[in-house]
């Protein structure tokens, strides 16, 4: 177990360097002048001034120096102290949102986490339930029907599904609005009486004792939750089904049946716990994916998470913001994948022993 964890931990710095080099490489596709322009609010028209800026930020230096500067910040010529740098949390200034990228992320990320926490509940539980049903009723009409359901599910692009549910539940029925909060609710949240505990709106509203705001926040998230669930059910269903079918063929399940256990007991108490092992990994990675911001879903529903901010930055070709998001996203994903892998090794002895 320890060797497994150590081996896995050793991979982390490799991945970190790799991701930063990759993102830095994308930025190197722009010329020094363009890169200077990216970081300044007012770009000077004067050639001399531009040259001075290029010198000051070190964009004329060798690539490895620039990479180091990008990570650690540029040395201030008078004080000799490095300023900025992504490792100090300075991702530059976001033109598309008119605030520093780090501030944009810290404002938007809690919303993404909030959505991810709520979306994973129906996504995983219903997905697994459907998969077990399909496996238990293998080759009956239930299995066939679920199979069609999952193929259609994977064929539905997120944004088409999202637009269709918006059309029905928002435009036609006026039940579930897009966005984050109603105007009255955001007025309350922005007012002085609102106490911020952990920055997640749904939880904070409960802690503030405002059930009406809790309901309003949840109501705005329902459509994205439905969309994310529907799109992801297909893969949960498929993995659970095939893993369940494989487990049901194992000898110990036959033994359980031979001992005369009820079918319910065999399926839910003997087969299902083991069949869920591969599903756990998948669930882990889906949650990680949700935390990384769901670009399209958030954009369709105008939900103010980091995914929609990334999309908006991309449309206005705000590259500083995009690269900042990429670094942030890469960090989250590397750490979260590590956690998933280690947790899985704890659950399944086969992983750590191999």
């Amino acid at each position, binding site marked *: 177990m320890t060797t497994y964890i150590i081996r896995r931990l050793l991979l982390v710095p490799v991945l970190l360097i790799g991701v930063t080099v990759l993102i830095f490489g994308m930025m190197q*596709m722009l010329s020094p002048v363009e890169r200077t322009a990216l970081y300044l609010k007012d770009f000077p028209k004067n050639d001399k001034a531009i040259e001075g800026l290029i010198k000051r930020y070190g964009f004329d230096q060798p690539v490895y120096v620039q990479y180091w500067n990008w990570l650690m910040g540029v040395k201030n010529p008078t004080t000799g102290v490095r300023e900025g740098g992504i490792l100090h949390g300075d991702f530059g200034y976001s033109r598309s949102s008119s605030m520093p990228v780090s501030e944009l992320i810290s404002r938007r990320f809690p919303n993404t986490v909030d959505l991810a926490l709520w979306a994973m509940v129906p996504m995983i539980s219903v997905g697994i339930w459907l998969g077990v049903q399909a496996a238990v009723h293998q080759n009956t009409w239930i299995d066939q029907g679920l199979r069609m359901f999952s193929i259609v599910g994977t*064929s539905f692009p997120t944004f088409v599904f999202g637009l269709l549910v918006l059309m029905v539940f928002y435009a036609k029925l006026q039940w579930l609005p897009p966005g984050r909060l109603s105007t009255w609710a955001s007025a309350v949240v922005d007012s002085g009486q609102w106490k911020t505990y952990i920055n997640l709106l749904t939880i904070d509203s409960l802690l503030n004792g405002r059930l009406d705001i809790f309901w309003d926040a949840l109501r705005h998230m329902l459509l994205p939750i439905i969309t994310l669930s529907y799109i992801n059910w297909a893969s949960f269903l498929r993995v659970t089904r095939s893993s369940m079918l494989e487990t049901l063929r194992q000898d110990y399940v036959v033994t359980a049946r031979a001992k005369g256990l009820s079918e319910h007991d065999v399926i839910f108490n003997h087969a299902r716990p083991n069949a869920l092992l591969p599903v756990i990994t998948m669930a882990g990675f889906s949650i990680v994916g949700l935390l990384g911001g769901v*670009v399209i879903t958030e954009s369709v529903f105008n939900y103010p998470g980091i995914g929609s901010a990334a999309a908006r930055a991309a449309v206005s070709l705000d590259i500083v913001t995009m690269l900042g998001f990429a670094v942030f996203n890469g960090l989250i994903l590397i750490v979260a994948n590590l956690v998933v892998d280690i947790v899985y090794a704890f659950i399944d002895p086969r992983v750590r022993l191999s």
Partner: protein
Amino acid sequence: MTIAEPTENIPSGDNRLLGEDVKMREIGKLERFLGPDNYRILKGLVKTPASRIGFALVFIFALVAVFAPLIIAPVPPNDAYKIPRDGYKNDPQPPGSPWKRQVPEMPFWYKTLTGKDEWVHLMGTSEGSYDIFYGVIWGTRTAFTTGLVVTLATFLIGVIYGSIAAYYGGFVDNIMMRILDVLMILPSTLAALIFAAVLTPKIGKSVLPVMFALIAFGWMGYARIIRGDILSIKERDYIMAAKVSGVKNSRILFKHIIPNAIFPTLVLASMGIGDVVLSFAALSFLGIGTETGYADWGQLLSFARNWISSLGTYWYIVVFPGLTLVLYVLGWNLIGDAMRDVLDPRMRGKA
């Protein structure tokens, strides 16, 4: 002695090893050409009703793409991929409203099928008076071009990368696989989104930035799969035999290993077309890539983003292009689903 099927290590159709008296089943030319494993995959593919529906859907879309100019002709002097605009009105117009400006030539089928003498907007117009029907028909071509080009490119890159890693193994393999790990950290939509945004100012607004971005972040899956297949084939006896008899390394790789390992990856690549089209449509839905008015389903759907609160009235700006996209991807996925069953090792011998 009864042997029903030739086992894996014996070339199909070669019954010398089994003795002359053994009765073998007839082996057709196609099976001889593809080998038993590949032939079984192909046979399984055309057998299920779902995959037949899939093939039918893709075939219909292919016909539409090929005969697009006959279905609705481009309006000169426009580029064929530019959707004609009936004026500059911002609000969408419902299906059946008359077409006044930039009217295409009357095609042969129009009068018989619709019974009308004048062109109308069959599926209505979207924001900016772009004709939806034209976009749907010509968007089929965009879908096929982007899907095929991106898939082919990612397939080639993946196969070359994966085979090099698998063949050399050891340190080289280890480094190459860690590079894959790095490239696969960022979610592919986000990575492609960023890369396309970096590329767009360089090469201008067209289908190219998005295609390059999808290629750059789309080949890793193929590399992994072919690597695994090559690793297992490398251990087979006939490769050993080739090595012992002094065949050159490169010849073993290209003549003996890759041809035997490539079929599953090839099949998966053909299934990847639907996914590529989905990602392409998603990026252009977000507003990356093609110029406004380019015949492309994602672009058509992105018009709907400004009319979300009135989609009840303007349903046609979502339903027509959306349904087209869904059916197209569904076609490829139905084929892919049949493929998964056939390729799943647990299903072997049960088909």
